[in-house]
């Protein structure tokens, strides 16, 4: 392929409506092969919807799409694929078949669409091609592993591998980096750059992490409330302008951390080890009103640790004390009774009922509070509470009875966080709470965590975003390979130091 063969995809005057929501109105968007485009905007701005139209998921839109000047009609995902448009969707779990193995998932399109008259699948070839594709991504996963056994990051990589396994003209990546580690992101960017310069692929990259957008995109489109509000060359815009365009208001990046008086020991964890020995924690304490960061790279064992405290995994040994009293978190429901709350990392899979309303989702953890005589739920009280959370987290939904499935990815994440704000827990464990939420919501979440600390709760904040941990925590435990390798005072440390210990430095 040479550069003369540039093709151009043009979306013109696109509008789309869902019951109660005008998701896009008169949007124009253009992309050319060989270039990388950034698409940014707050949660619910319409980014995924616009891309789903290109991917043939929604067909009831108004407006026109042109490919190289010719009007085209994308009526199904298959049409999109035939035109060379590949979309990696945000909802990772819905796009994968959990009980098939890695190779089958990567080669799904080939197996489904390209078989022609053949009736038998050439498994050797399938595994070979899948393995090669993973290799180019720098990923080391056995192609025979079942997808349900994989971590969220690995699943995301499988989806990317699926998109690049065949020749594409346009590659759309909807928040691909949210679950990935820094090294994985670097690898992904290397490939994306290679695809765009050497294979002439046009790439759309959606992310809430603006530095990433500045790193690889040439052009950037900003969306707000279903409209395109700006289109810029990347050199002509800075981060601050971009955030203001996204949110439609002035915004200061620095958030002052609340000053909270830290009290006595609230939570103490000793000699913690799960039965599979993935984690070994000798000692961890959280004081009243303290925000304790658990810093570690993806795969360091933060999620396993958070879940183990919460009683999800069986333990080989381990003692938990609250206010000096020994308690037993034998199951999550017992943990909740003991005053624990966990905001899990895989929010769509572990935190959402997509077929239930926003209210039902938000009150899932606190239903007993609304239960009256004969356990009958007081729905009006329930609704008031839900509305309050919707407002607090600015969850974008036409009303509180909307099905969770119809909310944008980031707003679904907010629901999972929101449902733990109603019950009165004592210890809050946040596992990567800012992934996938926009910058405005991120600050609201920090604000809420600050309020919880002020109320004297104990907070564990696990994340691989070191700057965030530095911004919000009082004390930091660095985790590496399932163990706490270092304890640091937030005020006296730096990103470099955390990274040093997080990568195994002694």
């Amino acid at each position, binding site marked *: 392929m040479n550069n003369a063969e540039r093709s151009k995809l043009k979306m013109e005057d696109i509008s789309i409506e869902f019951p109660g929501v005008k998701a896009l109105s008169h949007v124009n968007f253009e992309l050319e092969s060989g270039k990388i485009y950034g698409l940014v905007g707050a949660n619910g701005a319409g980014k995924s919807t616009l891309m789903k139209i290109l991917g043939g998921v929604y067909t009831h839109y108004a407006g026109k799409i042109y490919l190289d000047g010719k009007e085209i009609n994308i009526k199904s995902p298959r049409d999109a694929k035939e035109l060379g448009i590949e979309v990696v969707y945000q909802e990772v779990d819905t796009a994968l078949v959990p009980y098939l193995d890695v190779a089958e998932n990567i080669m799904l399109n080939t197996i489904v669409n390209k078989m022609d008259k053949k009736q038998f699948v050439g498994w050797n070839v399938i595994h070979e091609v899948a393995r090669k594709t993973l290799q180019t991504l720098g990923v080391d996963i056995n192609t025979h592993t079942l997808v349900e056994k994989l971590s969220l990051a690995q699943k995301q990589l499988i989806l990317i591998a699926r998109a690049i396994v065949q020749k594409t003209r346009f590659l759309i990546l909807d928040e691909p980096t949210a679950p990935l580690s820094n090294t994985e992101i670097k690898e992904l960017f290397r490939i994306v750059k290679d695809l765009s310069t050497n294979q002439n692929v046009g790439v759309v990259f959606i992310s809430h992490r603006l530095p990433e957008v500045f790193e690889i995109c040439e052009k950037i489109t900003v969306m707000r409330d279903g409209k395109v509000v700006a289109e810029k060359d990347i050199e002509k815009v800075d981060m601050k302008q971009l955030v203001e365009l996204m949110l439609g208001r002035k915004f200061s990046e620095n958030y002052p951390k609340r000053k909270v008086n830290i009290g006595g020991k609230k939570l103490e964890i000793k000699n913690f080890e799960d039965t599979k020995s993935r984690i070994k924690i000798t000692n961890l304490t959280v004081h009243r009103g303290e925000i304790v960061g658990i810093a570690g790279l993806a795969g360091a064992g933060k999620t396993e640790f958070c879940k183990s405290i919460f009683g999800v995994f069986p333990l080989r040994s381990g003692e938990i004390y609250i206010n000096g009293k020994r308690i037993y978190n034998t199951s999550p429901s017992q943990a909740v009774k003991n005053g624990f709350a966990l905001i899990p990392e895989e929010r769509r899979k*572990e*935190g959402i009922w997509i077929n239930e309303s926003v209210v039902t989702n938000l009150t899932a953890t606190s239903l007993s509070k609304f239960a009256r005589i004969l*356990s009958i739920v007081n729905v009006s009280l329930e609704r008031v509470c839900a509305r309050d959370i919707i407002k607090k987290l600015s969850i974008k939904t036409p009303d509180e009875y909307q099905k969770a499935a119809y909310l944008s990815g980031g707003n679904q994440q907010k629901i999972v966080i929101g449902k733990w704000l109603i019950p009165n827990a004592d210890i809050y464990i946040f596992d990567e709470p800012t992934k996938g939420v926009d910058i405005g919501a991120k600050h609201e979440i920090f604000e809420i965590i600050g309020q919880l600390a002020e109320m004297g709760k104990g907070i564990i904040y696990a994340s691989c975003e070191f700057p965030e941990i530095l911004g919000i925590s009082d004390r930091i435990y660095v985790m590496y390979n399932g163990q706490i390798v270092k304890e640091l005072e937030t005020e006296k440390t730096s990103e470099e130091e955390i990274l040093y210990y997080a990568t195994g430095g002694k």
Partner: protein
Amino acid sequence: MVTAKSESTVRNTQSFWKRISDFITKWGTVLTVGVLILYFSLTLPTFLTYSNILTILRSIAIVTVIATGVTFSLTVNGFDLSIGSVATFADSLVISMFVWYQMSTFPSIIIAISITLVVALLNSFLIIKMKIPDLLATLSTMFMFEGVAMTYTGGGSISEGMPRLDGTPTFGKIPHTFKLIGQEPYIIIIMFIIVLIAHIFLNYTKHGRYLYMVGGNIEAARLSGIPVDKYRALAYFISTFLAALGGVILASRIGSAQINAGAGYLMPSVAAAFIGYSVAGAGKPNAIGTFVGAILVGVLENGLVMMSVPYYSMNIVKGGVLALALMLTYFKKDE
């Protein structure tokens, strides 16, 4: 201006067809029931008479009660195949209390249902503790308790005056109060009460909400602190309880224990519960929907009998209408 106008007309015609198809999707099953009633009442002059309506209600009562149980197992994303055997077992137990042991009505019912709950215990153990898929676990208990009922009765049947397998003569009679249960109005009242309680339980109480949440996303339910295993067990206990109640009502209606008497209720109950998914666009198992499903099955059966369709061809029509009702609900042009 012009573009805006044409755009809105496009949207209006679109939404008109969409509204029609949405309506059919939502009310397809109810519509089918309506059309069936209309058709039968036009062709059969006695169809819509008071006594025939009572006959229909009476005939669907047992199916409704058992199907409500299935509905509970479906809410937690499970499936209870053992209900038919449970009904048979409960039938055998309660009749044996009367005929063999000359006991009175209410103790007999309570003892029979309590013993039958062993099936729920076993189902819960196999499914929750042993992690056997619901369908397979209840398939095995289905066979097991079909056998237990047969062994217990010594061949399957007990009736008044019939000597036991070892030749011991029996003197017990089936009490009059017990026989009343299977007659109107009591049988119909019981049915309505069960549907009503199930409806309130599933839709308005915390426990009902939890059942659906366990079924909707078990991982999310667990991590939200819902005692997932308890609620799954609860669903199976309710399922078994209602199947046993169905068996007791059956015993009252036929006044004896028969070989595999409950087995015939398995398929109509499962059908009713699945039809129930779609009624009023619920999209999930629900009590009222299941009731509508039972009515559909009952009306069809009654009408076909009255039209003297031979019993051996009846299932063809039944299956066909069922498929039609479900087609109306599930078939969508796009999306």
